[in-house]
């Protein structure tokens, strides 16, 4: 605590004009700053050796009808202490401009373009102001998250085409891929510039799946939006619904009973298991090594069938609700989980030794798609991808939620940042999750699993919540509107932070290795596009 205080003092000493908001002291430090100071103070947070601020999420709020202002909020995680520092600034009614921090904090690039698309606020000094979410055929002046934009408006179409970055020169040609891909994968467009085999440049053109999720949240009551959160990214049902529920619970000042928190951790680990198993198999399959894919597919299926038997949903839908969990597990079911996972762990260990002894596979994975620690940090990469590049971060340990304050997690990190490191992180996390599930079963307390949600929330109150899903950190910011509605819900899937980094990881690799690198990142399009 003394250390965190000193961070606050240091910041205040460097920038005397900032105002600390003491209300949020416990969870994080909150400072109100003027917009002109933003570039200087964010740069200080990011580059000062003792602070090493990582831009965690950046969001805007249209405060109408409460105030005629736009709020901009910059959340930083200080790497040494894992403490959150939130900087907030307000733009008065007619003010559409704010200074861009992208020139010195690379990780802000997509957030600022997103704010420009969704709110019509212009980040001055941003090096790339092309549209991001609104593809070029969207009519001018459509900014969906503004309060005067109706959620069910029918959009027209205008002429327009995306301008890709061009690399020109003798023998350079472009390879367009997508939006519809060869496998059963989500849509996204990749534009490669190559000279011969090696990739000189990759540009992503995403947001094909933009469904207006954040606007849809604003049409819901606080307690009723869990099914929508479950469908932000279907493979992360528990991660997203848990992050959403936690945010609403802290708005309503609810304390989830201990058994409810343990069950949440249990389901989160089950979700991690089936996704990691699928990814390990799919990485092998992308090198045309089909055997582990078949075995992993089988084990993944066993866990999904287990999910189905436990909760009636293969994706664990309907498990989380505001105040706790909706279904309890009996002692018999807990024993069943134990037996099943013991069997799968043994099964998987045998497969691991088969995979590890295949020299041609390892040769293909090593030094492929290297994401260096430096690049990973500059892009504020999170989750599995970050840990494979040596970033020692895991919210289960750093900011314990659910039952993780009583369940110490061994965080797996590798240094090399190649495809093999990302696969190894997943393999080790499979074992760690199995161990955690075992510990949860042993420690599972008795008692109620949920509390009743209260309906008293203060208009304009907001809460942040973070969950380490299987991909990485999922962040939700929920702001209450009038009568228990949602004024604003900011969703940050780990994919949004990690996608730009893939553009760096593929450089110098050959195009046939791209699917492999992409699979080792295993990012969501739905969670990214929202």
């Amino acid at each position, binding site marked *: 605590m003394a250390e965190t205080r000193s961070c606050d003092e240091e910041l205040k000493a460097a920038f005397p004009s900032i105002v600390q908001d003491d209300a949020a002291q416990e969870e994080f430090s909150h400072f109100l700053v003027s917009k002109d100071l933003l570039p200087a103070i964010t740069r200080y947070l990011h580059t000062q050796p003792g602070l090493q601020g990582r831009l965690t999420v950046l969001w805007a709020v249209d405060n109408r009808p409460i105030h005629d202002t736009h709020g901009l909020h910059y959340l930083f995680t200080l790497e040494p202490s894992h403490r959150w520092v939130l900087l907030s600034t307000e733009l008065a009614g007619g003010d559409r401009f704010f200074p861009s921090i992208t020139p010195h904090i690379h990780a802000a690039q997509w957030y600022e373009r997103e704010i420009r698309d969704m709110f019509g606020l212009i980040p001055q000094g941003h090096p790339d102001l092309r549209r991001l979410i609104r593809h070029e055929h969207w009519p001018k002046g459509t900014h969906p998250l503004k309060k005067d934009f109706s959620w069910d408006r029918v959009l027209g179409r205008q002429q327009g085409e995306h301008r890709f970055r061009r690399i020109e020169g003798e023998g350079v040609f472009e390879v367009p891929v997508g939006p519809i891909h060869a496998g059963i994968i989500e849509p996204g467009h990749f534009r490669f510039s190559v000279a011969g085999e090696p990739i000189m440049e990759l540009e992503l053109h995403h947001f*094909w799946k933009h469904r207006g999720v954040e606007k849809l949240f604003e049409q819901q009551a606080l307690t009723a939006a869990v099914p929508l959160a479950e469908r932000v990214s279907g493979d992360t049902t528990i991660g997203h619904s848990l992050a959403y529920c936690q945010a609403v619970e802290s708005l309503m000042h609810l304390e989830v009973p201990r058994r409810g928190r343990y069950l949440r951790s249990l389901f989160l680990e089950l979700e991690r298991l089936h996704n990691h198993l699928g990814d390990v198999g799919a990485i092998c399959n992308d090198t045309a090594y089909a055997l582990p894919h078949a075995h992993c597919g089988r084990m993944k299926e066993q866990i999904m069938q287990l999910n189905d038997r436990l909760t009636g949903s293969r994706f664990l839908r309907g498990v989380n609700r505001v105040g706790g969990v909706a279904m309890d597990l009996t002692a018999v079911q807990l024993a069943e989980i134990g037996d099943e996972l013991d069997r799968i762990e043994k099964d998987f260990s045998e497969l691991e030794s088969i995979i590890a002894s295949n020299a041609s596979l390892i040769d293909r994975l090593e030094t492929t798609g290297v994401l260096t620690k430096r690049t990973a940090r500059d892009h504020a990469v999170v989750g599995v991808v970050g840990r494979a590049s040596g970033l020692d971060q895991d919210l289960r340990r750093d900011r314990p939620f659910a039952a993780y304050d009583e369940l110490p997690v061994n965080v797996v990190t590798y240094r090399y940042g190649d495809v093999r490191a990302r696969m190894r992180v997943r393999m080790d996390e499979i074992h760690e999750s199995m161990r955690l599930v075992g510990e949860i079963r042993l420690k599972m307390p008795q008692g109620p699993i949920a509390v009743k949600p209260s309906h008293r929330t203060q208009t304009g109150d907001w809460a942040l919540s973070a969950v380490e899903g299987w991909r990485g950190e999922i962040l939700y910011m929920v702001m209450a509107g009038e009568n228990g509605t949602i004024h604003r819900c900011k969703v940050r899937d780990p994919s949004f932070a990690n996608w730009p980094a893939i553009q760096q990881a593929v450089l110098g690799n050959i195009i046939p290795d791209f699917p492999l690198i992409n699979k080792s990142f295993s990012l969501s399009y739905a969670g990214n596009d929202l």
Partner: protein
Amino acid sequence: MFRILKKSLKTGIVTGQHPAAASTVDASTPAAKDKAKPFRSSLAFRAVDTGSCNACEMEMNALANPVYDIERFGIHIAASPRHADALVVTGPVTVNMEQALKDVYEQTPDPKIVIALGDCAINCGVFKGSYAVTGPVERHIPVDLRIPGCPPRPVTILNALQELREGTGFHKD
């Protein structure tokens, strides 16, 4: 080598080790069945995601795992719409994907079947009404078969495809 063989022998055959489908309602209309006649012994489908949450895709991928092993029924996943007999469309058709869906439909050779998979493709599901959604699928292209569910279980998809082709369906005893 021996390790691999031992593993395969120990694992044995897992195909069919899944619970039976909850409902056995035949969703295919006679017209759709008629259209599916040429594909009775072999059907190549192309998956098109127009904005789903990825759960439907995961269940389609599960169809290819050893437990469901969809290829034993002569059903393949084609890499290009030009090689496909059927389009399996998921998601509520976002504004950004609308044109791509129409293009894919054009590029698929006739005769072709369109299957709307999951609640989103059938009625936009939880995304209904959003400014960014222009669906459902049948607003843009004709749909022959609807497989409801959020997401439908792999066995449900398998059954629906089998019934469409007037196969026996796959019900475990």
